[in-house]
């Protein structure tokens, strides 16, 4: 077994960055930009649908353009929320075990909810 005399910091030093650190930040910014038109559209649409009967709401969702935009909005919001919630957990939960547990629970529930939402819109759109 080769003995490592260098500390982990010593080994990492001088190797430069992993070039992956900015990935979440960039993804967060991209979803922010995409959210501006998508959320504007979704908020106005849902406000207009608020008082409408079931058939009108369902018919609205079957339109191809609506379905695609709605699925994009849902996916974008979930990706954005995933990063936001990850930051919240990292910032406020110091205990490593609880942090990992909370992270897994939150990410799993967000992925599940995202899948249910997308599947629902997809199935409605296909009729």
């Amino acid at each position: 077994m080769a003995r490592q005399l260098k500390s982990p910091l010593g080994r990492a030093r001088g190797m430069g960055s992993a070039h992956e650190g900015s990935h979440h930040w960039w993804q967060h910014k991209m979803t922010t930009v995409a959210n501006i038109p998508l959320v504007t559209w979704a908020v106005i649409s849902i406000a207009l649908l608020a008082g409408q009967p079931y058939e009108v709401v369902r018919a609205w969702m079957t339109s191809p353009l609506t379905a695609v935009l709605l699925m994009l909005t849902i996916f974008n919001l979930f990706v954005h929320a995933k990063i936001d919630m990850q930051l919240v957990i990292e910032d406020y939960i110091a205990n490593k075990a609880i942090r990992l547990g909370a992270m897994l629970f939150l990410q799993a529930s967000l992925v599940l909810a995202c899948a249910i939402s997308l599947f629902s819109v997809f199935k409605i759109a296909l009729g």
Partner: protein
Amino acid sequence: MLGHSKLKGKNSQGEKMSDSAAPAARPRPTSPHLTIYRLPLTGPMLSIVHRATEVAMAFGLFILTWWCFAILSGPDAYAVFLDCARSILGRIVMIGLSWSVIYHTLYDIRQLFFDMGKGFEKHTIAQTGIMVVLASIIVTALVWVLACTSVAPQIGGVHG
């Protein structure tokens, strides 16, 4: 542990000694924590509210999921959703959620300018902060006016 408890003992002794020495005990200096330090309204306060809206929106995504799934499930499931959404608690949640979404989006736009290195002047931060808060309230009100007025023609249409 031993050192810590020793220190504690010394401290309590020290306090007792100072109490007997000075009858009017002077409060110890305190670092400016949340209840003492008045947070600038347009800086950290907005940031804290933004974080709260993040959590509210993540919660709201589950309501969105319920909405989509209810529409898929059929008129009865959608009626259950509407009953919940139109209850008093449901209305509070919906108004809060719509404001959260609007505030969050507007704050994120302001944040995009910060990312580009713009708007960091003290008065600009205050101005844009107030703009975000006011705009979020106005837009939320407009959205609800839209939501409430969108009902009227439909009811007329159903009757007519």
